[in-house]
């Protein structure tokens, strides 16, 4: 049959030669490769104790950002929800009352904010859509769970720790990328 491309290889099925029909040389050759790996550097690491550095563009679990004074940035504008191709984000807004100025940056805030991590495809479009610098994809992944309930992340799971009251946790949540930029 005429070939359309020259990429396909034509296999010639010849009978085995004497040397091939002995089998043993081929077995030794294969075993040499197998045992050779014992003396090579191990590519596996002990995951929770050891961690590989993330790529600088890694997109993990979301965090809801706060400003320097610890006020929530999110104003429940809904742009992340409308940008989300998986429709994973839902929210409900409330009006800031007098006396809550230290909690929320603007007069409207997200009283409820939920991301369904089962639906989320970690594309980062929410981060791009956000006009208030409020949502970021961090350097962690979602831990496994036995129930679906554990994958619906509310505000208590998403909010970044308070930058003044819990400084260490806040720095940790900002991730390695931030520290690398600082060290440079």
């Amino acid at each position, binding site marked *: 049959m005429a070939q359309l491309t020259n990429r396909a290889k034509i296999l010639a099925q010849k009978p085995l030669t004497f040397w091939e029909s002995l089998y043993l040389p081929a077995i030794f050759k294969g075993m040499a490769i197998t045992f050779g790996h014992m003396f090579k550097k191990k590519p596996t690491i002990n995951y929770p104790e050891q961690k590989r550095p993330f790529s600088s563009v890694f997109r993990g679990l979301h965090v809801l950002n706060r400003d320097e004074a610890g006020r929530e940035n999110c*104003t*429940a*504008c*809904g*742009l992340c*929800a*409308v940008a989300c191709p998986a429709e994973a984000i*839902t*929210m*409900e*807004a*409330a*009006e800031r*009352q007098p006396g*809550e100025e230290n909690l929320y940056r*603007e*007069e*409207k805030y997200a*009283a*409820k904010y*939920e991301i*369904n991590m089962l639906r989320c495809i970690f594309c980062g479009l929410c981060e791009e859509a956000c*006009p*208030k610098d409020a949502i970021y994809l961090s350097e962690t992944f979602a831990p496994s769970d036995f129930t*679906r*309930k554990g994958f*619906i992340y*509310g505000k208590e799971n998403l909010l970044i720790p308070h930058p003044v009251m819990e400084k260490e946790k806040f720095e940790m949540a900002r991730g390695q990328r931030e520290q690398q930029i600082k060290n440079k």
Partner: protein
Amino acid sequence: MAEEIKKMKVTIDNITVEVPQGTTILQAARMIGGDVVPPAMCYYTKLQGSGGKCRTCLVEVSKGSEADPRPMPKLVASCRTGVMDGMEVKNITSPKVLDARNGVVEFLLLNHPLDCPICDQAGECHLQDLGYEHGKEATRYEFKRRTFEKHDLGPYIQLHMTRCILCYRCVYTADQVSNKRVHGILSRGDHAEIATYIEKSLDNDFIGNVIDVCPVGALTDKTFRFKNRVWFTKPVNAHRECKCCSGKVTLWQRGEEVLRVTARKDQWGEVEDWICNECRFEKKKVSDWVIEGPTHVSRHSVISQGHYEKLNRPTETFSKVHDGRKPKLLMDIHSVSEVNDPSIDLSAINGPATGKVFEQSKKQA
């Protein structure tokens, strides 16, 4: 013996149309439709005397008329300029017009707070559309934006003076549609603001129409404040028997809740029938209305993202493929999600929801 109405030939962007005498250039352009229609922020067909203030509808008249073919020396406001026979108008074909319009938009946005993320008008705001089409990416303004003392306009209408572009539409509406006007424009120049001189609430019947008429988010519905974004609500045409108005409205629903009631708007964003305050603010139940069907929303609008108009609700196929057996385990979304809690009826709250509303529902759960 009625005199025959004289027809005039006018050419806008090389498209010729015949219009009756006394038509404005803007109206003639709207008869053609499409891209040649200049944007209008202050002009409102149903309000007499409106127009001529925002200058976004500027066009170039390259030939005055058949009798006097000289071009007009300056760009003219198309909403206030009548057509002449043989007039030739350039809108989008004139770089001068586009340049001028960019400048106008920049001026309109000079003092605008750009708080679209918290503004309830976002998604149906004419200034947003205009800025998207003609605006620059950044402002060149270096000074502090003007701010105003907050005025309370009563339980129904929320005023954000910083967003106002001084189009005067709400003033004309109060004059021509409602029976009494208690608000107006105070001061002048940069200090001009919409207010009631003595703190007073706007509560005469039909005053709610100022919300629909406002091209920006300066006057918004307090009963809808922060309840949801416009594009997540479902617009539905509905009507009811009303003693004082036509009762033809658009309901903006979330599920079965009626979050907002507005008048129906035509393709130019203008109200079709004025509606009364009772229909707008007090009838927030589905049972108050006869629902006609989803409102047509232009596919260029973000509001169409829900695709309610041609929505095909998928049917449950589980029992069909399992010989009529019902699923043994069904997860109720409300058992895992706190959003859209059925125990909170946002439409029943007069005014914006606060943190307390949501906390209480948490305690109950």
